[in-house]
């Protein structure tokens, strides 16, 4: 029995080492479709690496923008700057509240925002956080919070990506590495925004459904709100516009609006902005023309609030 336990322990250690080596080799050598459970997203269109890299030097911003791709494709820093407000966008693809919480914890002190725009796509309340987890594990500087998040997500893809990312950060990526700044999704604009002029072509209508709320995501969301309140940072909850077809796929929008309004000032711009269909890049996201309209509407409504918070 003793021999079995000794050998199991020894093999576990041996296997772990071989596994790590093989993950790294697979990451370096195999083409994308051949490493199914390794999703290293640096160099992919999400541009999270560039966005987070920019944060290395960012300090004392006026406005911090949080959320999913709706956030980093929906709030143009150049428009806000015209009003004198410097913005930092921490949005990432399918960013669930687990990841938002992690990012806020990591950067809130350094960025010291005077105001927060928390863009909420309600579908995130039922998201498992894997996609965004992979994005962060790939692109963010690894620390114990990222490792803790990996264990919380408990998904083999995230574990594999963590191994590979640790290797890449240690041995491959250096301070001079730069991600391509333009790709099929658009061009990166300083401040975390991704600009695009492509136009939505339309797709087949989907079945109706409802947004679901998962308790753990709601808890993370509430933790984020709590952090803003503790630090006395004024914030607004907003929902950037989607195409009407996409928006009305869900039949409990009003219930979601009511719920979110309980957590602070909340604006659903699907109900406020009137954006033509050719101002979308896809069913979820605005193109630059759409962003111009939406941001103007946003600032018109929130100008006094932001001015009060930022003192400009």
């Amino acid at each position: 029995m003793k021999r079995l336990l000794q050998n199991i322990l020894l093999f576990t250690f041996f296997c772990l080492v071989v596994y790590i080596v093989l993950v790294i080799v697979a990451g370096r050598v195999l083409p994308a479709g051949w490493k199914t459970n390794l999703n290293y997203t640096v160099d992919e269109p999400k541009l999270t690496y560039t966005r987070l890299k920019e944060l290395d030097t960012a300090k004392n911003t006026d406005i911090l923008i949080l959320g999913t791709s709706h956030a980093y494709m929906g709030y143009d820093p150049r428009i806000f700057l015209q009003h004198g407000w410097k913005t930092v966008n921490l949005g990432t693809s399918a960013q669930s509240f687990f990841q938002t919480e992690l990012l806020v914890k990591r950067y809130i002190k350094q960025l010291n925002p005077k105001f927060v725009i928390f863009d909420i796509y309600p579908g995130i309340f039922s998201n498992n956080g894997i996609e965004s987890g992979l994005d962060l594990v790939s692109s963010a500087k690894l620390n114990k919070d990222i490792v803790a998040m990996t264990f919380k997500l408990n998904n083999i893809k995230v574990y594999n990506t963590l191994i590979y990312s640790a290797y890449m950060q240690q041995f491959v990526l250096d301070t001079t590495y730069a991600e391509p700044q333009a790709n099929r999704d658009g061009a990166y604009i300083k401040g975390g925004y991704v600009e695009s002029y492509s136009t939505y072509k339309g797709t087949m209508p989907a079945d109706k459904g409802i947004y679901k709320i998962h308790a753990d995501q709601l808890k993370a969301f509430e933790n984020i709100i709590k952090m803003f309140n503790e630090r006395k940072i004024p914030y607004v909850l907003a929902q950037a516009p989607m195409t009407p077809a996409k928006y009305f796929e869900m039949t409990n929008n009003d219930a979601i609006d009511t719920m979110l309004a309980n957590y602070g000032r909340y604006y659903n711009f699907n109900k406020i902005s009137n954006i033509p269909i050719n101002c979308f890049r896809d069913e979820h996201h605005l193109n630059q023309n759409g962003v111009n309209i939406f941001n103007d509407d946003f600032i018109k409504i929130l100008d006094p609030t932001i001015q009060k918070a930022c003192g400009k």
Partner: protein
Amino acid sequence: MLFTHPKFALFLIIVFGLYWFASKRSFRLQNVLLLIASYVFYSFWDWRFTFLLLFSTVLDFYTGLKIYNSNEQRHKKAWLAVSICINLGVLVFFKYCNFFLHSFNQSMHLLGYKSDVALLNIILPVGISFYTFHGLSYVLDVYYNKRPPTNNFIQYALFVSFFPLLVAGPIERATHLLPQIEKPRQFNYYKAVDGLRQMLWGFFKKLVIADNCAVYANNIFDNSHYFYGITLVLGAVMFSFQIYCDFSGYADIALGTARLLGFDVVKNFSFPYFSRSVAEFWRRWNISLSTWFRDYLYIPLGGSRVNLGRKITNVFIVFLLSGLWHGANFTFIAWGCLNAFFILPSIIFKTNRHHLDTVAQDKLLPSLKEVAQIVATFTLVTFSWIFFRAPSFDEAIFFIQRIFVKGPVVMPADNRLVLIVLLPLFIFIEWFGRRQNYAIEKFGLQWPRVVRWCFYSFIVFCIGMYKETHITPFIYFQF
């Protein structure tokens, strides 16, 4: 609790620790521990059905004693009838009730009557077909004087509910498993290591091969209206590998777990896709169920000692019931009948006992004739799987018709790696291990330990890199 869920690993570590350390002084204590563990394991699905399991156990334990203690043959027969009727009654109620009600409604409709008998809202207790057959085999063995009944309820209850076998077999016999439960088990290092190795291979088969093949099979079968020709053939072939690796992977994990606990359990698969005839295939596929039907149905019906007409009828009865055992659907009946048809020539020409050895027994590669035989057998078996997998009989027929329609070849999934690398690698390893109990039983045992461990680590890596990220239940859990 699925074998592939991390919870099972934790469960097994706890059971293993308590079993060998805490209770090593008394095998009776070990039995109690395993019994509790088995009921805990089962209650993870639905604790309410543990009462059904207990009822089935008490019934067969009691009737077994009654059969043995009855002096008159007619009393023995009566107690046997009680056991069979109640066991099968429970099975029929939970598994086939709605099937019969639905069929009744349809038959009445065809005859021009309006029948709208409401279907019942019944949950199928997981593993019911397996533990019912466990119990029946015990009662029948007692009736046929193959073994005396046990007076120890704990031991009998453990025989029925032993957790590695509880939900998807293999279906053990009292003559084989009970004697092991009745005496102390000694820890054996080599047996435990062998168990772990078999579990590793089972996980690889299930998580890497079966679940990846399932992506293709599910996509093609679920959207068969959009596909033609070769694509549909690909779907059927993928399902063949899916069901083999899913079920035999489960069996490997079950057998490996049992070996860790010091038990030897019957082998359920013996490389069935290297069979040279359908008769050989059925000696190598789901062996415990095939032999169950052989011993408790085919032989009592007269076996091969009857005239040809009767023999053919018996074969059809066995395969039809075997099909029905799998599920309450005409597709399973069609699958059973098809296999009966396929095996029929070998019964008529008395060639069903050919190919008792392993293909290419002492050779590296098969002869051309053997290759042709293997391919032909695989084709027939795969054809029958179409009925097994299709949601309805009509869908199966439609699927087969579309195979002969020309159309573009579509690869309806992204994970082509499974087709190009993993499946051939798997077949390669299975081929070279076909003389063993499981493919990697002796694979690399002569290599230095570091090299051998590298091979095992590579299997672990394949699981980690290519397993599906969501947990997929084993196919045979539904039966």
